[in-house]
Structure formats: C-alpha cells, structure tokens
C-alpha cells in the first residue's frame, strides 16, 4: 500500500531495500500492520495445505488404473435443452472473481473512510460468496444425484469422487468461513467500529481499524486464487 514514513529510516526500493529492512531493528516489513503480516504468513501456510491436496490429487489421478471421467461431460449443465460443458463452473468462477473485485473496492473506500460505500461493498462481497457456496451445493447435489460418491463413481475412477468432494469441500469451507466473517465485518463497518481511532469490538477485544478490511480482503483474494487452481486441475485437465 502507500509507502509509510518511518522516522530515522529511509525506505529503499529493490533488493538493497529489502536487505536494509531485514538488517534494521524493530520491524522486518516496514510499516506493515501486524495483522496483515500475520495474514500473509497464514496464507503461506494455507498454500501448503492446498498444495498437498492438489499434489495428492495428481498422484491419485496419475496412478489409478481405471479411467478418469471426462470433466466436460461430468460437469456439463443443461441450458435451453443443450448440454453446455462447464457452464455452472464458469458462472461460479465469474461470481467469485466479481466478489474479489467488490472486496478490493471495499478496501479502497475503507481507507477513504467512506463508511457507507465500504459497508455495502463488503456486504456485496458476502453475498457473492454466498451465491458461490449455493452454486457449489447445487453442483454437489447434482453429482450425488447422478450417483457420484466419495467412495464410488459411475463414470470411472472412484478416486474422482473422493478428491472432488474433499478438495472442493475444503475450499468451500474456506469460502463459508470467509462469508461469515464478511457478514460480521459488514456489520462492524456499518456500526462504525473502525471509525475515529477504533472501538473495542467483540471477539478479540482489540481496537478496530480499517486495515482489518484489507486483511480480510487478502484472505478473500487467496480463496479466489485457490479456486482458479482447483478449477484448472479439476475441470480443465
């Protein structure tokens, strides 16, 4: 974000700047809020979680002797009587990416101290996320209806169902948690917890600040990015 001013310390760009930040006292990432640094590191850890899932998926898919189902058939959706491959997924992806956009705007208005806009945008993001979860639930029920189960699969390898439900389920849990927090944060923005030096909110008993919107935003963008990978691995491979 904007470059912070730090007394007695000159921020330099590039590798040298990084080295001098590292070599200095007090903070390593100059001007970065604690919560934000925490979120970055949490996301790094979470990246490892998803990588493990996806690597396991690649290994599982690579080594089953039974044929892997054709994604564009399994995930096709009837629209006006024609099966359109990947229609639902495209919609889901679209919704999620859009919600990332609204989130980014919310952060911007947050820093501009525009409480109303920020609140509405956070709310919009939450609704986007909820829509995504809803569509995912629909897709799950469709597949289950067609007989796909975590332990078996009429279209081919049983591992398809296992990995699909596990990984999208895990991602969906991330989205759902995000949605819950988005609603809470929307409420907090409207209630003015982040205004005027901040109020003690419930939960962490810490003073609020609009930076929290940005932190939540980081999480939300990450969940989005992961979806892109899942999308590529499950639907396009």
């Amino acid at each position, binding site marked *: 974000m904007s470059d912070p001013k730090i007394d007695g310390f000159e921020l330099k760009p590039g590798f040298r700047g990084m080295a001098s930040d590292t*070599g200095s006292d007090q903070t*390593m990432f100059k001007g970065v809020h604690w919560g934000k640094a925490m979120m970055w590191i949490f996301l790094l850890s979470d990246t490892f979680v998803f990588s493990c899932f996806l690597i396991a998926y690649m290994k599982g898919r690579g080594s089953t002797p039974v044929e892997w189902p054709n994604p564009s058939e399994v995930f096709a959706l009837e629209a006006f009587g024609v099966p359109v491959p990947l229609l639902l997924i495209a919609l889901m992806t679209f919704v999620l990416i859009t919600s990332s956009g609204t989130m980014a705007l919310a952060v911007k208005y947050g820093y501009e101290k525009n409480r109303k806009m920020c609140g509405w945008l956070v709310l919009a993001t939450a609704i986007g996320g909820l829509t995504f979860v809803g569509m995912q639930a629909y897709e799950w029920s469709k597949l289950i209806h067609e007989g796909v189960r975590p332990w078996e699969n009429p279209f081919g390898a049983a591992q398809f169902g296992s990995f699909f439900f596990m990984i999208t389920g895990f991602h969906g849990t991330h989205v759902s948690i995000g949605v819950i927090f988005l609603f809470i944060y929307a409420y907090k923005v409207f209630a003015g917890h982040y205004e005027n030096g901040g109020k003690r909110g419930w939960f962490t008993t810490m003073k609020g600040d609009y930076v929290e919107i940005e932190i939540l935003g980081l999480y939300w963008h990450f969940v989005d990015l992961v979806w892109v990978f899942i999308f590529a691995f499950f639907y396009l491979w």
Partner: protein
Amino acid sequence: MSDEYENKSGYQAQSSETLTGSAGSTPDIDYVRPAELPEQDLYHGHTFITKWVFCQDAKVIGVQYFLTAVFTGIVGLILSWLMRLQLGFPGLAGFITAEHYYQFVTMHGMIMVVYFLTALFLGGFGNYLIPLMVGARDMVFPYVNMLSFWMFFVAVAVLMASFFVPGGPTGAGWTLYPPQTILEGTPGSGMGILLMLVSLALFVIGFTMGGLNYMITVLQARTRGMTLMRMPLTVWGIFTATVLAMLAFPALLVSAIMMTLDKVIGTSFFMPTILKAGEVLEYGGGSPILFQHLFWFFGHPEVYIVALPAFGIVSDLISVHARKNIFGYRMMVWAIVGIGALSFFVWAHHMYVSGMNPWFGFFFATTTLIIAVPTAMKVYNWILTLWRGNIRINTVMLWCLGFIVTFVNGGITGIFLGNVSVDVPLSDTYFVVAHFHMVMGIAPVMVIMGAVYHWFPLITGRLLNETLGKWHFWATFLGAYSIYFPMHYLGFIGVPRRYYEMYDSPYMTSAVGMNEFISLAAFLVGAAQFILIFNIIKTLKTGKPAPKNPWKANSLEWHTSTQPPEHGNFGERLPVVHRWPYDFSVPGAKDDFIPQTTPPSEVVHTKVEKT
C-alpha cells in the same frame, strides 16, 4: 468492561522523549532510531478466570503450555516403563498383551514427539521467552495466543480420551502407516485412530494460531535497537522451528484429513485392493506410499522442530555459563536457517526401503548428508565456546555438556542411517530406535532440563537446589546413555523395532541380558525425574530467593522491571538495545558481562567488537 483497558500501568504511550530518539544529553554513539510503532495495548485481566485461566499474558500461557506438556511427557514416560517391562522381562506383567504393547509404543512415540517436545519448546519456552528476549510487551495477538493454548489443551484431552474408548488408543505406530492403521488386526483401529487423527488436527490448528504469534512477534515487534542479528540464539532457534512448523504441519493436516475420510466414509486415498480373511475389502486404487511421503514431509521437519529450539537454547546456556561469547554467532544463525531450509529436502531418507522408486535414494542420501555440515558447525562452535572460557560447572552447564555428548553420538548414528546403503541393513531395527532416542529422546530433554534450572529463578524468583540438581543430572545422563548406547548393538545383530517379543532366534537370545539391563536403566532414569519434581516443590516452598539476574546474563529477559516479570514485562519503558547478548568477558570492562541495554557511552573504554 471498558475500564479494564484504561491506562492503568502507565505505559500505554511512550513518552515523547523515547519516541523521538535519545535526548541531546547522551552522545551520538548511543543513538537508536525512534520507535516505529506506538505502544501495544494490552488486556489486563482482573478476575481469576481472565488472569489465570483464559489469560492473555504470554508468560502465563507459556507456563500453561509447559505444565500441560510435562503432564503428557509423564504419561509418555510411564508408557515407556510399561514397554521396557515387557521387553526386559517378557511375561512378568501378564496384562501387557501384544495389543497393549503396540498401543503403548504408538502413544509413547506420538506423545513424546508432538505433545511433549513440540509443545514444550514452542508453546512453553517460545511463549515465555520470545517477547521477553526481543523486548516486546507481549505476543502480538494475545487473544489468539490464548486460544492457541486452549486448542492444544483440547487436543490433549481428546488424545487422553482415546485411552478410554472401546478398543483403546491406536496401536498403529506413531507413523500411522496405512493400510494397517485403519484395518482390523491393528489395535485401536476403530475409535482409537479416529480420536488420534482428530487430536492431531486440533493440535495443528492450535499450533498455527500460536505460530503466527511467534513469527510476527519476532519479525514485527522487536524493541528499539533489537536487530535480527542481535537476537539471542534461543529466539532464532524457536523462530526457525516455528517457520518449519508452519510449512510442515499442513502435510500432517492433509494426511490426517484424508485418512479420516478413508476410515469414516470409505474413500480409498491410501487404500489399495486388500484381501482380508479371504474377503476383498471395499477399498481399491489408493497409494500407501503417498501417505508416507506426506507423513515424512511433515515428519522430518518435525524432528528439527524439536531440535532447533534445543540448539538455540543450549547455545545461550553455554555462552552464559562459560562466561564467553558464543563462538561464531553469524555462523550459528546461518546454520540454524540452513538446517531449517534443508530439512524440507530430506524427508524420503525415512523411506529408503519403503518401496518408493529406488532412484530417489541417490538424491535423498546426498541432501541428508549435506545437513550434517551445518550441524557439525554448530557442534564445533559449542565446544569452541567452551574453549578458553571460564566455565562454571554448575547444574545448567552439566546438562549442556550432556547434551553435546548425546547429540553428537546420535547425530553420528544419523549419518549411518542417512547413507542409503548403510540404512538398508539397519532400517527398522533397534539401531534406528537408539539413534532417535539419543538425538531426540535425550539430547533435547537435556536442554529442557538445563533450561528449567537456568530460567527457574526468572519464572519463580527462587533458585533450584544445586545438589539435588547434580544428582538428577548424573542419574539421568548416565542412565539414559546406558539405555541407548548398547541399544545400537541390538540393531546390529538385526533385532527389528516394534517387536513385542523377540527371543525365538538364536542370535536374538544372546541379547536377553542386555535387554534386562536396558530396562533397569530405564526404570532408574524415569524415577530420577522425581528428583526434579521434588526439587521444584521444595524450592517453591522453602527455596532461597534468587538475586536479580543470578547468572549475570546479558539478554533482556533478566533486565525486566521486576523478577519474575509482570504483565507487560518491562515496566514503564521498553528497553533500548545497543549490542548483541553475548558481550561476556569483554577486555577492559568492569564486570564480566555487559547487558544488551548498556549504551556504548558507558563502556567506551572496552574493546567491544560488535555492537
């Protein structure tokens, strides 16, 4: 509630003088950049519950972690007694059936590695020492920190509950290799394994909350003048271990989730087609080796997660008690970081004979042996710190010396195992058991003991009894060494590990006497721990009060406003740091130590090399 946040302790904001740098009266050489951040705002509990139960003070959380971990450690110790009872004197205790034996082995291994050592080093020492040593008021997210402990507590409760469910705890070996883990024929393959997996997942979640705290506190909340290269090695060790944990635990979490699904809803991630009792099971198509890769991607960094904090702490203890700066501090830091980084590239050395593609052996043998080089540098630097020092041979130093002996011994046997073709005959034998007990079961435990004797005065304000301490040390060191040194030879003659009973074969019968001896030593060592417990209780009741900074150490934890430190650690003003923590015996200085907070202007006449 809001009154609790009022500025009661008076340090909510630093005075403008400290915020803008030193006032003009002190000379320029004392200049330290002004504070970048305003004071941390802290929650001061008032009721018993907020002060001691759901407490947000890292020091209390540290002690909570410590006590819980020691409790699990004692459970693990008792389990090891039961195992040794069976191994040394088979049949003597009739209630130890093979099922029970395997449950003991599994729970012993898992408890000791994860719930005892990891929690003790990172949760216990990490929480207590990091904020104090880097000069912070507290961890950066005290609330999350509190949650972290309670998550760990629940994980321990779930783990202990598994002793009481039908079928008992899991007996799958701490490595939990499928398919055997979740199939009948393995004890506790029902509820036991499920609770184990749940407990591990909870542990990982709880640890993540704590780990974020440790990392951000070190990275973003150091005091003025505290650069990374002025941090005590204890902090470096715990910090690097935390980084490893944040990146390694995901693999454990994922494998636990996948195995739970295999168990509960019948997926086949790790389960190939299996024929049991003439019936083909519902499983098919999965890969057991995949689990091993995931497990060891976690498991190998895990062993360094317990080793690195021990390395860090022991460096500090040696330096303080040898009255000499740690030799080659820079090298020590780089070695810690290097070992940490390399540890992600060696995991398959546990799988040389697992049936993975044998060509991996070349790669992993090479990386494994490369790790020996930075580790060796650390060993050399420890003994070179002793060299030309002024060594106090007190209890703390004895534990450090014991650590060096056992660690080098265990490290060298690690070299045997890492060298792939040497591992072939030794893998899965008692040689491996001896290796990892030497290097993990006793070396870090020695450091814990040393650390307890060292920091006890800080935490409680009283000095532990030295005589009892020495008895405790010699009983533990000599006993533990005589357990594990001979055990290597059991491995040479080919006795496999995880054998409930082993005397059928002629060459194994020759070792009956040795096994009895080992068991007796194990009982002795376990019993010796009660000396420490007795010592602690006695000291708390009647021990002599410790003077402030009794060991004449330099690092910040000894220079707090009160001893034991209060909530907020440093009283009104945060300390300002001017040097590394190892300025011992500086030529020209009055005392043989110069605390980190001493400004250069006060010691101009000395020949300090680094500041």
